[in-house]
């Protein structure tokens, strides 16, 4: 596979041509590949991730952006992109500078590791997957253990007419071990999932002990009680607190929703939304995070932004256009899924910072309610401010003690009411960040991290 830099000269030529016609032009050259290994008791499958490469050009056309993209990086195809954009410019273009400040950063960054993922041959990944499957299957009642290991290399070269040149190469890996417990036609699994940016050290948590714990939990879920139903005290584990920070709160802080008047949080910027113990952060520079990036897709460096600082909603996430609209600076959150997708304001690694209460203290404070464990998915409601979070399992809390295991459930309610009802934030010892994929509305999936610490509040719970 050719390096993106091999295409730089041709792309730069087209960019210069476009920059002569428009107030601003930029291009993202993007390519990637990787390896996925899937193993279960029936099949071994190693697949090479697609060798995809392409470029997307963007122009400011006076009152709107226009874009064209191509997977064909030959000079003829790139010139065709330019011609079509110039035609589009002729139809709608007018004078006027592009909104906001363009990046002028010129830098090259790459994932650094003493043991790079690229040095891990498919045979080694397969051996690791087979070993993990063996650990899972060693437990009684585990009828099947599915293992998936994925490593990828994402390379992006951003150039713009203001002189920015940002080349970044990011290595990521994730593993999923799903021991499936079966009994009388019923099946349950609680997978072990870990991922991040970095090298082979990312597989450090793929241990026998962790797989056996996942297997035991999967088996226990077969006899889990039905979850409680109705409004009650809820204690979110770090994975669910992270889902809350990302899905329920974070999406409302993406300032492109502010410009559309489509965020329930817009009028609350600067206001107190939660207790002083609550701080929520988005951090594109978080070390080895699954959502970590060196530069966003407008050439701004990844950074840490405190969305909520000691209970006060202090900042939103911005691209250059929304930053201009709100007289602030871009926050390094402009992301494209790949060269085929548009750029949106997106999160990176979003989490709840540690507070002061231990898990025992939070359980005692809950008195009666439920712990929600192992968040699996959530969906945003940027205007309505409602939340939906789904979890794999939980435990009842009765008279200040953790009691019975309960099955999968969902959490619902008003985000603002939930924030105001927060009664406790967990300590650093419980802190962790998990890996997932975020879609904005219809799709455009990107890797994001989410997590934090335990969070105690009040919400509606039901089966799901």
């Amino acid at each position, binding site marked *: *596979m050719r390096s993106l830099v091999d295409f730089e000269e041709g792309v730069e030529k087209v960019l210069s041509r476009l920059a002569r016609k428009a107030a601003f032009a930029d291009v993202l050259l993007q390519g990637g590949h990787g390896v996925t290994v899937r193993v279960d008791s*029936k*099949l*071994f*499958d190693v*697949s*090479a991730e*697609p*060798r*995809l490469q*392409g470029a997307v050009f963007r122009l400011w*056309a006076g*009152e*709107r*952006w*226009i*874009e*064209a*993209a*191509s*997977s064909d990086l030959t000079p003829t195809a790139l010139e065709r992109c330019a011609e*079509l954009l110039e035609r589009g410019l002729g139809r709608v273009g007018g004078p006027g500078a592009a909104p906001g400040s363009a990046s002028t950063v010129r830098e090259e960054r790459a994932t650094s590791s003493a043991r790079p993922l690229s040095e891990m041959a*498919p*045979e080694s990944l397969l051996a690791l997957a087979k070993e993990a499957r063996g650990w899972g299957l060693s437990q009684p009642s585990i*009828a099947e253990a*599915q293992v998936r290991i994925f490593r990828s290399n994402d390379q992006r070269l951003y150039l713009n007419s203001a002189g920015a040149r940002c080349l970044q190469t990011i290595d990521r890996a994730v593993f999923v071990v*799903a021991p499936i417990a*079966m009994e*009388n*036609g*019923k*099946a*349950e*699994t609680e997978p072990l999932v870990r991922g991040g940016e970095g090298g082979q050290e990312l597989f450090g948590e793929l241990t026998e002990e962790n797989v056996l714990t996942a297997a035991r939990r999967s088996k226990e*879920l077969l006899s889990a009680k039905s979850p409680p139903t109705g*409004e009650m005290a809820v204690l979110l584990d770090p994975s669910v607190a992270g889902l809350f920070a990302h899905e329920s709160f974070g999406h409302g802080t993406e300032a492109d929703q502010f410009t*559309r008047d*489509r965020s*329930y949080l817009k009028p609350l910027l600067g206001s107190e939304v939660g207790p002083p113990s609550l701080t929520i952060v988005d951090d594109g520079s978080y070390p080895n995070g699954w959502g970590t990036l060196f530069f966003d897709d407008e050439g701004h460096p990844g950074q840490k932004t405190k969305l909520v600082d000691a209970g006060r909603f202090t900042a939103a996430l911005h691209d250059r256009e929304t930053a201009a609209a709100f007289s602030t600076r871009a926050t390094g959150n402009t992301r494209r*899924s790949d060269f*085929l997708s*548009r750029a949106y304001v997106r999160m990176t690694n979003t989490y709840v910072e540690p507070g002061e209460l231990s898990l025992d203290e939070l359980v005692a404070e809950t008195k009666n309610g439920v712990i929600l464990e192992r968040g699996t*998915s959530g*969906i945003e409601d940027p*205007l*309505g401010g*409602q939340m*939906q979070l789904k979890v794999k399992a939980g435990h009842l809390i009765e008279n200040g003690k953790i009691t019975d295991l309960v*099955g*999968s*459930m*969902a959490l*619902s309610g008003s985000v603002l009411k939930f924030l105001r009802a927060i009664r406790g934030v967990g300590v650093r010892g419980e802190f962790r960040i998990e890996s997932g994929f975020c879609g904005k509305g*219809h*799709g*455009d999936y990107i890797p994001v991290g989410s997590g934090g610490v335990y969070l105690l509040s009040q919400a*509606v719970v*039901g*089966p*799901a």
Partner: protein
Amino acid sequence: MSDPWRSGPTAAERVAERLRLEPPWEVFAEEADRYEVYLNGTRVELVRGPIAIEGYGLRLLRPSSGKLATGFQASTNFSDAGIAEVIADAEAVLRHSEFPAAKAELPSGGGGSPSVQISDPKLWEDPARAVEEYVTELSNRFSGRTNVVLSFGAIRTTRVRTSLVNSSGLRRSYEHTLVSRELAIKASGGPEGSPAGEYWVDEGARRLETGSLGSEVDAWCRYAADARRAVAPPTGELAVVLPTTVLSGILPPVVGLRCSGVGRLRNLSPAIDSTIGSENLTIFDDQAYPWAQGSAPFDGEGTSAGRPTVIERGVLRGLLYDSLHAAAFGQRSTGNATRAGLAPREWLRFLHTPSSDVSTLVVPPGSGGSDEELIEQAGDGLWVQQLGWARPDPISGAFGGEIRIGYRIRHGKLAEPVRGGIVGGVAIAPQGAPSLLTRIAAVGARTELSESLASPACLVRPLTVAGN
């Protein structure tokens, strides 16, 4: 279609003619260009297009110690060097793979394929113009309305030429169009002073139709306005009516795993002839359903479209197979080889190796009557117009989601709007255990197409609702 956009040899042919490989092998390719318009209110904020991509996936199959080794690689590089790289990748991964079938036969192209309605002529001929006209019409439908606006819109269209060539002599292609509409309708202001309400549309289709836009916009605006005055539902076991748009988020993913070769291979499928649904429920998979996103003259391996029955009056009658999973059980492919990935990118199927899944599930009309008659039969319960995300767990079969907008049913009539709270349960369960499928008390008479499901609304009695 004679558009010069795609004429001459297909992408699969351009790759296949340069292959010198031991059979069996298969090349699946797509040539796509995409046009998108994004709206901030009714102002255009971004116009994209063409977003042009062409790519192919090469699959190799080799017998290996009584099993089958498969190798797959996809690429957008059509140069000789690019193809050589793809072959090397596929050969390399093939050495590490093992599938439990002695051999699999790829289709040879005997017999015909049905004619399928999957391409919008206007969109095919001039996609940029078709999108622009649609956006103008859409914006017009919102003008003059009081207290309701379009706050965000994305109209995305794609025209695709899909082609397939394999070592058994099959050489096929077809043209099709895809549409996605993502719209946020916001109700605010007015004398009531309550917070703004939103109705979010996220739909896939094959055509850009303006004929029904007026009535659609009317309904969306009504849902957005109703969201402002909605209250939480009650908690309890209730009769719930689920329209097609909600069922389409539950049935296809569950049936696609549990009632397919993939599920059977992992011991997740119920036994054939076991009862897994109510007597009111019959489901088949129609691979040529008009204008459905999953329809095509042939599947992802070249098998001609058919209509396999899955559930008949509640009894599991058959599973859905692609060639490989069929071979693992001595069965024949049912034409259900699908290529899909994480994102809703039906135009990038060349990136994925085939597996078995649904095309379009069809629930034939039942005796439940009109929507009004279903509501009357519910008596006291809920009509759930939109769930946040039902997202069934493929292993446990559990599903559930937050009610984004729904209506209380009182005395057999729709009453006040509801919002918030959770509706959920188990979609499919072992024989003898209750589930969504076994609790379908009535199937309506009016069929609608939504994503991978063509079905009337269904009355489910009861479902667990968590609210106030």
